[in-house]
């Protein structure tokens, strides 16, 4: 039923195709990239796109196509791992708050509200400025920013399910809190959670690109799309292809996750449709 509806939705199929292609590219980037993405060749610097270099070369003569392919791995890793981490913490907090209610719920909600009160990019910039560069730190910063989004969804779902009769029945038959939450309550929160996490990956990739662009993310020479754009900015007039292609890669990836998320929302949560 679900699968059938999903496959009838053209937009979500389109998104899924992009996401699968990206995952393949990032796993196989070592095999499919025509050049070593880190190899400097001064004689080849800022070459326009050609047969030999499909996307041209950058100011160090590195092949941009290879760098874009290899950047997929960084973007996807950061996007997916940070969302997984943030979602895990968010789920635990949201489930505890929603299930137990009372002052515990109040405190958890307050913490989630406080985190979400910061403009996301600004909080990411602040965290990275004190923690220092590096992929691990970006993941931590983005996971932290994501927590309230997942926490709120789970809390809401748990609240609406907590009083349902089948949960009452399970409670009456002696199920413990943990078992109740894991078996009866959480699975019912999955639909909105899947949608939020898919779109969360898109947002995480956008913020990572912004951080790396500002020099607060993935340190060079690693080919992150954001720091490729930062390089491109200095050669905007001489070598516009240094700016155009990494940006297209980001947009394409974000487009994939966004359309997949929108499609999943239509399929999993018909009430939210439109």
């Amino acid at each position, binding site marked *: 039923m679900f699968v059938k509806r999903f496959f009838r939705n053209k937009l979500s199929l389109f998104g899924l195709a992009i996401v699968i292609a990206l995952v393949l590219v990032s796993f196989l980037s070592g095999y499919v990239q025509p050049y070593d993405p880190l190899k400097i060749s001064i004689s080849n610097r800022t070459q326009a796109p050609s047969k030999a270099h499909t996307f041209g070369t950058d100011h160090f003569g590195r092949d941009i196509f290879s760098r874009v392919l290899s950047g997929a791995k960084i973007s996807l890793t950061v996007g997916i791992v940070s969302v997984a981490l943030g979602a895990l913490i968010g789920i635990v907090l949201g489930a505890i708050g929603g299930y137990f209610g009372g002052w515990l719920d109040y405190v958890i909600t307050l913490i989630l509200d406080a985190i979400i009160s910061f403009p996301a990019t600004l909080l990411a*910039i602040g*965290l990275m400025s004190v923690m*220092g560069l590096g992929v691990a730190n970006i993941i931590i910063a983005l996971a932290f920013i994501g927590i309230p989004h997942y926490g709120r969804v789970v809390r809401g779902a748990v609240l609406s399910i907590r009083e349902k009769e089948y949960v009452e029945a399970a409670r009456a038959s002696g199920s413990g809190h943990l078992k109740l939450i894991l078996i009866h309550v959480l699975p019912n929160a999955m639909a909105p959670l899947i949608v939020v996490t898919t779109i969360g990956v898109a947002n995480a990739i956008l913020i990572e690109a*912004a951080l790396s662009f500002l020099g607060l993310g993935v340190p060079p020479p690693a080919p992150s799309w954001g720091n490729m754009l930062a390089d491109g900015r200095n050669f905007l007039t001489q070598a516009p292809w240094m700016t155009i292609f990494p940006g297209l890669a980001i947009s394409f990836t974000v*487009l994939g996750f966004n359309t997949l998320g*929108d499609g999943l929302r239509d399929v999993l949560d018909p009430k939210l449709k439109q």
Partner: protein
Amino acid sequence: MKNYVVRRLFSVIPVLWLVSILVFGLIHLVPGDPVLVILGTTAEKDQVEAMRHKLGLNRPILVQYGSWIGHLLQGDLGHSIISDEPVMEMILRRMPTTLTVAAAALLLSLSISIPTGILSALRHNTYTDYFFMGLVILAVSMPSFWLALLFILLFSVELKLLPMMGYVSIFADFWEGLRYLILPAMSLAFVLAALVARMTRSSMLEVLREDYIVTALSKGTPRRFIVFKHALKNAFAPVLTIIGFQIGFLLGGTVVIEDIYSIPGVGRLIFTAITNRDYPVVQGCILMVTIIYVFVNTAVDLAYAYFDPRVSFGKK
């Protein structure tokens, strides 16, 4: 209604208090000794002690926080490590610039998105609708800082129509200021316009299906009258929420855009401060922008109640 307004305003206090703790805690996230990070490992011992004393890091953490929040409540955000200027003054001097850019982007995006959203809803499931919604999907996927670079490439480098970077206040010279404002505002407005257009469309579609609209139509009320008089006001509440939520995107995005176009606002201030490891300035900027964001959202919630009288003011 009055009770609701008061309660909503009071609910901001615990959130802002936690926000202040997070911002205060930032400097303690610096790996190792923040003083050594600021001064470098080659600093003399008495220099290190003097800086530690200046930042108050030699006191117990609770005392540090107490003193920080005490000063904060009097509008004192501390002093810049580099220039020794009061951080609050540095921010207030640059805030109008940042708010001008953000406001210009907001105005531009609303003037594009609301008509587009209404048109898409009225032409639901036609090619016009598909075209605009396709555009929306594309627009929300593009990073605003990439658009900013492309706009520079197109409008400044190729067409030579608009300045590449720099800033002139529209309050000093309106027309010249406008020329400098167009590209930054456009870069930010694109994504925002897409989100608002999508929300306007879906909200209008929902309202247009309501019984009272159908009744009005069947009574022969002119369609234009129905759309603008009945539907729009009721459809506007959810749109307002999206706008409020996106102010955060706008304020965060402005920081990046200011860097690209060399606009002397709060964003540039943060960057210079990050490069100089001027932590009090970084903390102050983040705190002030967040406070603005929190109050904008509170105002949006209150306006929501105005636009949608069905919102219950009772205890939830």
